[in-house]
């Protein structure tokens, strides 16, 4: 049986009709064409499919699209501003060489985006803990950790600029 669902994805209301067993990851990728969310293991360990559900990072391979009906989802495609300005995390990953093949990167970016919202100036330990559920086979994590710190700096600068502008 198919189920009509309505998701708000990256700020846009999207409708789809999906079988109950349709994983949210597959719905985003194949029903909605948002292929930036990647599938690396389909058992919740690698974290490549991480998206933000109502702002919180979750594994989209461990959730049915039907369960997400009515919720807000942010994918990697929705991290940059509407005008295309990259988010601090996106800029930092590029600046610090925090990605190689890029397959795990969307999951890291979503995870880190939510983390820096909660913790704007994390310690090294907190950064490692925050990304400890995401596998990367290319970078050895060295530059990802650097990138998270750099993203925190960029986020602080952006906020300062905004406050400056608001005055």
């Amino acid at each position: 049986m198919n189920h009509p669902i309505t998701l708000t994805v990256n700020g846009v209301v999207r409708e789809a009709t999906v079988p109950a067993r349709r994983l949210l990851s597959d719905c985003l990728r194949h029903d909605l064409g948002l292929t930036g969310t990647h599938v690396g293991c389909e058992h919740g360990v690698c974290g490549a499919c991480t998206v933000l559900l109502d702002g919180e990072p979750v594994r989209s391979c461990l959730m049915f699209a039907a369960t997400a009906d009515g919720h807000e989802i942010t994918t990697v495609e929705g991290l940059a501003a509407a005008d295309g300005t990259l988010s601090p995390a996106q800029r930092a990953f590029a600046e610090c060489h925090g990605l190689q093949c890029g397959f795990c990167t969307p999951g890291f970016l979503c995870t880190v985006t939510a983390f820096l919202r909660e913790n704007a100036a994390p310690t090294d330990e907190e950064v490692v803990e925050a990304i400890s559920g995401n596998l990367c086979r290319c970078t050895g994590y060295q530059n990802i950790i650097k990138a998270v710190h750099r993203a925190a700096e960029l986020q602080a600068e952006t906020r300062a600029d905004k406050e400056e502008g608001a005055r």
Partner: protein
Amino acid sequence: MTTKLFGEPVQRREDARLITGRGRYLDDLGAGAPAAAFVRSPHAHARILDIDVSAALDVDGLVAIYTWEDLPGALAEPLPLLIPHPALTHGRTACPLAREIVRHVGEPVVMVVARDRYLAEDACSLIRVDYEILTPVVGVEEAARAVHLVHGDVPGNVGAHLVQEVPSADGRSAREAVETAPHTLAFRLDVERSASMPLEGRGVYARWDDDDRSLRVYSSTQSSTSVRMAIAAKLGLPLPKVEVIAPDVGGGFGVKIVHPWPEEVLIPWAARLLGGEVKWTEDRREHFVSSAHERGQVQYVRVGFDDDGRVLGLDVNILHDHGAYTPYGIIVPIITSTQLLGPYKIGAYRVEFSSIYTNTVQVTPYRGAGRPQGVFCMERTMDKIAAHLGLDRTEVRAANFIQSDEFPYDQGLIFQDGRPLIYDSGNYPEALRMLKELIGWDSFPELKAAAAAEGRTIGIGLGCYVEGTGVGPYEGGHVQITSDGRVHVSTGLTSQGQGHETVFAQIAATELGVPIEKVSVVTGDTRRFGYAVGTFASRAAVMSGNAIALACRKVREKALRIAADALEADPRDLEITDGVVHVAGAPSASIPLATVAVLSNPLRYAFDEEAQRATQFSGASSMDRPPIEEGQEPGLEGKDYYSPIRSTFACGMHAAIVRTDPLTAEIEILRYAVVHDCGRLINPMIVEGQIHGGVAQGVGGALYEKMAYDEHGQLLNASFMDFLMPYATEVPRIETAHLETPSPLNPLGIKGAGEAGVIPVSAVIASAIEDAEGIPIDRMPISPSDLHTLRLTR
């Protein structure tokens, strides 16, 4: 900064799309294409008695079901054995779908195509295959006893047997040298299986164009040109009717160099048969049981040495677990047995290996490709010599090093490329000096004593290696400058995250004197470049980098010649800066490369402004000569190939400090230091990234990753829950230092860096744990449970 980009940490040009979700990986292509799934053998060794698909026929959305009996002609035959070798007397490969016998869990038996993957899996679950269970052969030593056979026609389960021997300078054999040496040691070493395990599995998407009678195939491969040739051959298609493209690839690490995988011929075949498109995206469970593994070896070592620790004779016998098939030949054990020698001068060397079949997933190269095992063997040997003589471990190594003035150094063996193992350059004593300084080797005893006083157990270890990189036979580069001033670079080999689009653009921009923003690079697309070998063996930068540089030099020469005509100058007086050709010292006498590109083509339809302006520069054309002179071609483009006489040899030395918990036996890496020499660096940021990733995989191989087969040939840990790849929490901070000893073999002076990081890690960690615990560490990986068991036997 526009031109001197070689050597700079230029930010990656790939990243813009990859950080915004606009990358195009295999499964991102072909939206809505019918999906394939496979019924795979649940048994390690069995005879197929019957396949009953009737229950699956009712599945809504089913498109087709295929078994071996459906395969026509060459497709029904065993897949190619890519790299034959005289010693591989009993090479065996599988058919794309199993024919009669299955030889490992995961071997494909039935292919299903359905509207989507969910439905295809539904159909697979309804197909009944009757098997007669045969006795599985698991474990390399068990297989070597040959009580049961993996292939009925391979006696002893021995696929290959090879002995290489280099006598000492005075003509003595290695065995004689060992036996007559002042000191002798004999021991056994074990390295378990791991796997490349890229985060993106394999995948194939094929689209048959019935109007054009042509096939376009996308594959998550490390070698699109060879996949193309394999498909054309297997499907009986003319080569020009097949194009293969490697899209963005989510990591390879070796497993994707094997080709053609069964799916790489089956999916295109089904697409043609069905007159449309078919896609297969490997899932993680499939990747564990139906791609490839590596590393598993048992090594028996005998070594003879003098009082200074100089190795007089080394005699190594290797049992190499090759799994069920040998599609990639015996490259892995050949590399182990040759690269084992590392940076050392060994008095006399004998190495013998047997490549043994088992009823497990086939073994093909994984990053490092046999080197980690070889280095483990040699570095464990060095540590044992030091322990036996009571010498510092670095002294023993230094006593055996090839010295800087001894290059080129001939090790007297035949390397993986079939050419002599001759090291081109290096500076091993300096690398060791740098490493000792970086890790604080000489002051470690105080650190250790201080830790002991606090009840903490720590140890230090090191490992040295030499890596043959940039193996031939060739790669090519094509460079075209178009009338808009853009520079289009292509090369046939593929990319899986190494940053080729960036480093090749750096090379082209530097060679041509153009802003890097004008340069675009395409890799792994047979529509752009047809001849290539592939990305493996740390060869891409060396091979394609040099080929692109040579192609650029051709284009530059042509551009200068045309510009010289237009400027009425001597080409030797011209330079290119910021994409403009000008007379050295007279910047006003200049002509943009864009205009040169227009001039290079006598057909000057004015598509754009450059073409309109071009006429004013065109010199008086002679009416006696054809518009294109003999030996010339229209357009500002060039192609060249780089084909080295032999490999170039990079080197590295790593050290680590570990802490072992006296109670829980947990092992923690406190520091990890790397000194690395890959010749001239094109982009130091990218080289560092390669080393980091390699070390992390090495840490996985040293402490976490193994393929756990039971006696029935079932892989017990075929998931990311139980196959333990390191997270950020398991990888230490990696400290690096670089030494640059240019290669004399190639125009750019570079050596490969891709595999470097992973190679010595198991040796280094074993060395450090042994130092901490005082227990010989002869088997890797090592877990807390293993260490606990070793402590009990102390």
